[in-house]
């Protein structure tokens, strides 16, 4: 705002009047440009993500219809839902910015799929990619550092394999209400809706940013 005032003063000194419409627009919006840009970006992101979500859901519905066709309508039905006590395997983590109270904050959402953190899964994949065959050192306790690192990598990769198998078990358990043997289309349905969940979390974050920016710039 100070820069705009200085610019207007310079224009007056040069004999040029600033455009009244520009000043009116600033008065109407009442916020700085950064916040306006953040709002526009988050609104654009929201609409793009909603479009992606529509595609992911459409794919999921199509896969579900294919699974229902191959397995039979009675085997893929809401009547099979388990109403016994159970915890959700996929949850959210909510983080509030440190400098704001929760009631007026811009909360950030993170997805924890199959009881695992997203970052842990990424780390696991990274570790699995970097795994390579190592020589196993037998004998002395004081092993060279390189070998210690290889043991650590092997331990991490075995943890990664355990995590991956845990995820697969959780996925299979979620499908077990439909029977022991399920159509591959049901598994692709599950993947489609997992993708939709990731998009939904991004949508929630965009919504949060948009509303936070909007509250800053509205007059």
């Amino acid at each position, binding site marked *: 705002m100070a820069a705009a005032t200085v610019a207007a003063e310079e224009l007056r000194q040069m004999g040029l009047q600033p455009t009244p419409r520009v000043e009116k627009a600033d008065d109407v919006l009442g916020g700085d440009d950064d916040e306006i840009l953040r709002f526009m970006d988050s609104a654009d992101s929201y609409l793009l993500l909603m479009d992606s979500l529509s595609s992911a859901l459409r794919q999921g519905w199509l896969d579900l219809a294919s699974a229902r066709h191959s397995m039979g309508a009675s085997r893929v039905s809401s009547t099979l839902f388990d109403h016994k006590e159970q915890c959700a395997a996929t949850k*959210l983590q909510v983080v509030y910015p440190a400098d704001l109270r929760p009631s007026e904050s811009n*909360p950030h959402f993170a997805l924890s799929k199959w009881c695992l953190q997203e970052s842990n899964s990424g780390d696991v994949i990274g570790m699995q990619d970097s795994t390579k065959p190592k020589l196993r050192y037998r004998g002395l306790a004081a092993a060279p550092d390189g070998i210690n690192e290889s043991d650590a990598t092997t331990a991490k990769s075995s943890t990664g394999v355990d995590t991956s198998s845990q995820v697969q078990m959780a996925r299979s358990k979620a499908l077990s209400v439909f029977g022991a043997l399920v159509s591959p289309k049901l598994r692709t349905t599950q993947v489609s809706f*997992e993708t939709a969940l990731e998009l939904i979390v991004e949508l929630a974050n965009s919504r949060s940013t948009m509303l936070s920016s909007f509250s800053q710039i509205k007059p």
Partner: protein
Amino acid sequence: MAGRANIPANSSALIAIIADEDTVTGFLMAGVGNVDLRKKTNYLLVDNKTTVKQIEDAFKEFTAREDIAIVLISQYIANMIRFLVDSYNKPIPAILEIPSKDHPYDPANDSVLSRVKYLFSADSVASDRR
């Protein structure tokens, strides 16, 4: 909704769903289904027998629960309780209107975009210029 405690930072929270059978089935397959000790679920399956009152009650319950961070609601169902959805303005739980099989997403009806749309409206700026 008044007096609802905030979800503690970095704690786990649930996703609630108010949608048709296929959408609810799909998301339950993705692992979001939760049933507590009192047999209360975090989802409502809406069919042609579901009344508007049941939808309203489910929406009010999900937005009042401390352990729910996002409420997904099919947009055509949100249209049935539009006054309730539009009057909701808390950051948590976040209300997201999603498309359904038979009703594609319409940005004009989205409660969030409706709240901010006047910033995009030519009328609001043009009226100040006159």
